[in-house]
């Protein structure tokens, strides 16, 4: 068995697709791994296949045993019926609105604060930075109830403000991530700009922001993901049906469609497809973001 391959990734990516030279035997080990990965891939994709397949079936076919993997007849109308059975258009608009604020808020504010922690020397920075790090460990549920009380005393329960405002107050984790990223940007760049008379705001806006695009893209995607899937926020603060988001709408849709799994699966597809599209369009940034996270390990 040929064991002469390297573990390094850089090489693996550069090597040509043909992994074994002609004339040399394909190592059994690789065949096994390949087979195993193929089987695993099928298992990992089957749930998604099942969701789409169920969403296209008729009620009778869903109750059928043994179940079918491919619908006997494709009921595309399930989607239209689902879309109109609940105000999905409204849910989508509401979700997009909240997602917009989450993305803009998180990107701008975290980048701004991270600059302060990475590039400015000020009194008390060490103290505040360790406070910031320690807040990462506070479980969200500990502040959930008092935050609700706070927003309720401010008369904001029933509006989007309790969901939107925190997006503009920085997230400890993203600030930490971006700060690590900024520290790798050479100080000479900003120092040269300082000598030319630029203020911190200009340096941040003109030099650091353009250089940190990959990091910002990762945060934008995470914030999008978080806001799109946010359940707790809207569940807690929104009571009027006209303000429902996709997650809350889908959850209450279940009550009305209790046993109609074709409609429930169609609804799930509708809610999940944007995330899947986003993933395929911006896969690079998902991975970039995970690597940023990995970089925070030490």
């Amino acid at each position, binding site marked *: 068995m040929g064991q002469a391959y*390297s*573990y390094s990734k850089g090489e693996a990516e550069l090597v040509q*697709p043909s992994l074994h030279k002609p004339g040399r035997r394909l190592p059994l080990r690789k065949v096994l791994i*390949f087979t195993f990965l193929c089987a*695993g*891939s099928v298992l*990992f*994709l*089957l*749930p*998604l296949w*099942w*969701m789409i397949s*169920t969403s296209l079936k008729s009620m009778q076919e869903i109750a059928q045993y*043994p*179940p079918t993997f491919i619908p006997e007849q494709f009921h595309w109308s399930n989607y239209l019926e689902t879309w109109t059975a609940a105000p999905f258009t409204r849910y989508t608009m509401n979700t997009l609105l909240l997602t917009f604020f989450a993305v803009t808020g998180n990107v701008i*504010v975290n980048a*701004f*604060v991270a*600059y*302060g922690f990475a590039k*400015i*020397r000020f009194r008390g*920075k060490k103290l505040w930075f360790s406070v910031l790090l320690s*807040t990462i460990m*506070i*479980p969200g*549920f*500990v*502040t*959930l109830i*008092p*935050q*609700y*009380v*706070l927003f309720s005393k401010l008369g904001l329960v029933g509006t989007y403000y309790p969901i939107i*405002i*925190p997006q503009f*107050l*920085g997230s*400890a984790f993203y600030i930490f991530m971006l700060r690590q990223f900024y*520290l790798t940007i050479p100080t000479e760049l900003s120092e040269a700009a300082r000598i030319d008379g630029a203020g*911190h705001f200009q340096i941040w806006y003109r030099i650091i922001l353009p250089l940190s695009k990959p990091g910002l893209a990762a945060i934008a995607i995470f914030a999008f*993901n978080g806001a*799109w899937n946010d*359940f*707790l926020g809207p569940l807690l603060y929104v009571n009027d049906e006209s303000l429902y988001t996709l*997650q809350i709408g889908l*959850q209450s849709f279940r009550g009305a469609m209790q046993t109609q799994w074709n409609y*429930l*699966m169609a609804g*799930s597809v509708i*809610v*999940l497809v944007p*995330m*899947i599209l986003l993933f395929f369009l911006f*896969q690079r940034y*998902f991975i970039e973001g995970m690597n940023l996270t*990995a970089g925070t*390990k030490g």
Partner: protein
Amino acid sequence: MNMNQPQAGAQHPLKASKPRRGKLARSEDRAGYIFILPWLIGFFGITLLPLLFSLYGSFTNYDITSQMDFIGLANYERMFSSDPLFWKSLSNTIYYVLWMVPLTTIGSVLLALLLNERVAGMRMFRTIFYLPSVLSGVGVYFLWMQLLNPSTGLVNTLLSWVGIAGPAWLTDPFWTKPAVIFMKMWAVGGGMLLYLASLQSVPPQLYEAARLDGASALRRFRHITLPMISPVIFYDVVTSLIGGFQVFQEGYVMTESGGGGPMHSLLFYNLHMWHKAFTVFDMGYAMAMAWVLFVVVMILTALNLKLSKRWVHYEGGDS
């Protein structure tokens, strides 16, 4: 790397002018605080103030509309002595964490090892295994409720092919939590990607040298790979532990009207707390519950940190 640490040899400019700070230093101070101001507002407004409020609130009887009555430790006493659902929900959560954290950690390490091999189509494999982890929320829970349907679901259909009569999953109190953990395993791709990045930063020379010394694959894994990826394992364990104790939505969405499933088997700690706070408005009690959780998570994280010194290997560190 770290700008806060003065480098050897170079005197920190601020340290030099400590007794009387110059005009420049003071303007830097001002700039620094302007930049971190949004976070500072958030820290005081939606973290510290709520924390203090809930600490005080945990010693009161409070239903959000009437005055807070100070009742001392009564909430805590009630929790430990006369609320069987407190213990039930706590043990449900611990059961979940105890299985989910090791299983997802081991699962994602193994997957990363496989996906770090050089075989054809690797890019595609990585994409496929990573994809499920970006999906979350109500849609995913519905999907799994459908997959876990005892008679017509995919899971039991596949099991029947290999001659296993699958359980009733979400309606059998014994199988509800394994079902939820099973669902979590579908999303190991997130952790996998972290490990993959870390595996790829291991210098290949280490393996070459070990192979020349005749070390077996298992020994190479045990003595090279494992120590090299230990910081990521540590990070992953700490974050999934903290995340695991926050389990809520699985119990809320996947059970009948958020009740916590058959025999309260999916009544997780946070779900119980949620009902206390927002269904019966027993907020003082719920805040006391939150603090107990906080203390448990803090102790476990600190313990983790302490134990980590024994097995986490930092390059260049003296551990």
